[in-house]
């Protein structure tokens, strides 16, 4: 583990009306890691990711992004969040979304990056299309492009491959590998074994608690995909 983790969660907890969605969760993620975040539905994966993105406030503990509190301007500069449900402005084209987001993050000449992302994700023809005109898979790819168009030190992706065809999945894996090679940390919430295979580390959450943190050994964490009681906890 690096001395200065990109993400550090300590005693992180979140309650909803007495229900504990996440409890005393602690984890550190270093630069260049690709972490597969696994766990059954309702385990607390999305809660953890939204807490780290600063979209939720914790009930206890906290998250730091490059040493800054989640949600602070510095943390927002370093962190890119890809939600499970794509979100778009209804009156902007996909190209305008990308230009706008790049500008909001201070990118001065984003055009080459935008062109590249659209091309590699098969969205080139849809640059001037409105989000409402896109299929589910296209919207998901546009959302991925939006997460990648801006600079970041850590990417939090909530089930990014859902609804994508095999060539698109391949393109996304390549883009994630490039980001990782450039030193970014990636946390990918998933139910897919292929993400686990590409990961350098696996973190499993079960009933809001850290249930496994170690090598992405499919046999060790297989139970956390569907049957948590079969997994071997760390």
């Amino acid at each position, binding site marked *: 583990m690096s001395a200065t983790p990109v993400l550090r969660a300590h005693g992180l907890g979140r309650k909803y009306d007495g229900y504990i969605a996440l409890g005393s969760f602690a984890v550190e993620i270093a630069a260049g890691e690709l972490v597969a975040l696994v766990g059954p539905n309702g385990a607390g994966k999305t809660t953890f990711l939204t807490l780290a*993105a*600063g*979209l*939720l*406030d914790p009930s206890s503990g906290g998250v730091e992004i490059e040493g800054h509190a989640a*949600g602070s*301007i*510095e943390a*927002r*500069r370093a962190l890119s*969040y890809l*939600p499970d449900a794509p*979100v*778009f*402005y209804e*009156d*902007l*084209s996909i*190209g*305008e*979304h990308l*230009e*706008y*987001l*790049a*500008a*909001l*993050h*201070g*990118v*001065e*000449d*984003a*055009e080459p990056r*935008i062109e590249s992302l659209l091309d590699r994700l098969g969205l080139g023809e849809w640059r*001037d299309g409105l989000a409402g005109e896109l299929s589910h898979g296209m919207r998901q790819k546009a959302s991925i492009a*939006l997460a990648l168009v801006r600079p970041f030190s850590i990417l939090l992706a909530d089930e990014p491959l859902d609804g994508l065809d095999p060539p698109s999945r391949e393109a996304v894996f390549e883009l994630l590998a490039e980001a990782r090679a450039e030193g970014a940390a990636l946390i990918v919430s998933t139910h897919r074994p292929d993400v686990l295979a590409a990961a350098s580390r696996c973190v499993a959450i079960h009933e809001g608690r850290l249930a496994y943190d170690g090598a992405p050994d499919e046999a060790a964490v297989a139970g956390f995909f569907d049957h948590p009681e079969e997994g071997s906890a760390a």
Partner: protein
Amino acid sequence: MSTGQGTVAGSPLAALRTMRRARRRRYVERLDVMEVLYRVYVAAIFAAIALGVLAGAINEAPASATAVEWLRGHGPALLGIAVAVGVLAGLRTGAHGGPLAIEAAEVQYVLLAPLPRSAALRPAAVRQLRTSALAGAVIGAVIGNFVFRRLPGSPVEWIACLALFGALVPVCVLGAALLASGRRWRPLPAGIGGLLLVAWSAADAAFGWTSSPATMLGELATLPVQSGIDAALAAAGVAIALALAGLGLLGVGGILLEAARRRAALAAELRFSASVQDLRTVVLLRRQLASERSRRRPWLRLPPARPGGHPVWRRGWQSFLRWPPARIARVALLGVAAGALAVGAWSAAPLALLLPGLLLFVAGLDLVEPLAQESDHPTRRQLLPVASGGLIRRHLAAPAAATAVVVLLATATATAISRDPVALGIGLLACVPVALALACSAAFSATADPYAYVLSPELGAAVSAAPLVAASVVVGVPLLFAWAAHRHGGSVLSAAAGGAAFVALVVAAAVPFLARQFDNRDAVSE
């Protein structure tokens, strides 16, 4: 930034402003100018007609010296209570993440971008304040235009003071909401703070003081009949209202993103539901926006059901006994406001006796909830071994009984304010038929199919408005009959009884009609 061209430069804030300008420009370009002009034209015609009717209905005889003295002494505090209740509502809205409803994409992309959130949110907050203040000023000026005819003081004074008061009331309410949301106040302390202000203003009313900031603002509304120190107090009220809005704007960036995301999703649904006049969904979404949920533990547990009892009646009361405090307070407040409005209308503008019914109809939309739930789940209803019509008829009993309690509350308020036992007599005579009629009106509204007239929206709008008009009439008729008898020296209570009998006839026709609607729906689905 040149949108669509692919080249961007400058700071994130500059990018934000440029994109917002571009989006506004595009929105304006897409507007159908003729359609907008037509709407303005129609609205202006209706407004002129309404003003004409109102001007004819309002008694223009100068108010008596006693009435002016009463207004001078009690007016500011009573208006202060109303302002304080508004601030309480604003604080509660703010504690639940309001009043801003931001686009989901704005939350995801702008509020997660590395730029100050206050700078991103302040324009929307200022816009909301500006629009509300303008609307309030217009309403205040219209009221001032009628008030100066009855009270001492020049037209300019009354119109200016009431326009300023009308502008500052929404500024206060929105300022309180922005303050609570930006400072992330929890609902309980925010509610307690608002209640303390209401209690302070009520103390002013009881003891004849002018100490609460809300009462000071009330001084502004009655300034033409006040003198000396009151002008300074009114100026202090104005300063406090502006300071509240300023504080709210300063802290707007502290908004909870969790609440902003929730409101973004609900506001989009709310806009759609309102556009198709789906009042039932609007009610449900508004409750979600305010995080208004039924209590897990009822206020009171009913004794175990007896075999052969009345399960539908019991189910209705089980629903009421789980109401959250905010809903109880809202319905009670609507009852009190209806009673106060009836007293004001009786002496100032008899045509306004049709307005208490509108307030009680809004209360009825909450009170008819058990029946509306049955309507919301047709499959479950159709699986029961009873005809839907009969079931719905039985479902009217509990809401009607609860509505009767609210009507009695309105009666008690009217009696307390007017100090006239005749008000109590009218209320008691009309209570049962009016409660049944209000429950029927609310039931028609809550169970209407919003898509039945989607191809003829004008007809849909008329059908949606019908229960509201009906509620206004069934409450207004006994009151208007009584007022007419009072004016012509007849028996007020006999006239009210006649009005109540008319309402009872309406109920006798409405209940079978409502039941038959459900039987017909079931027949179609089979």
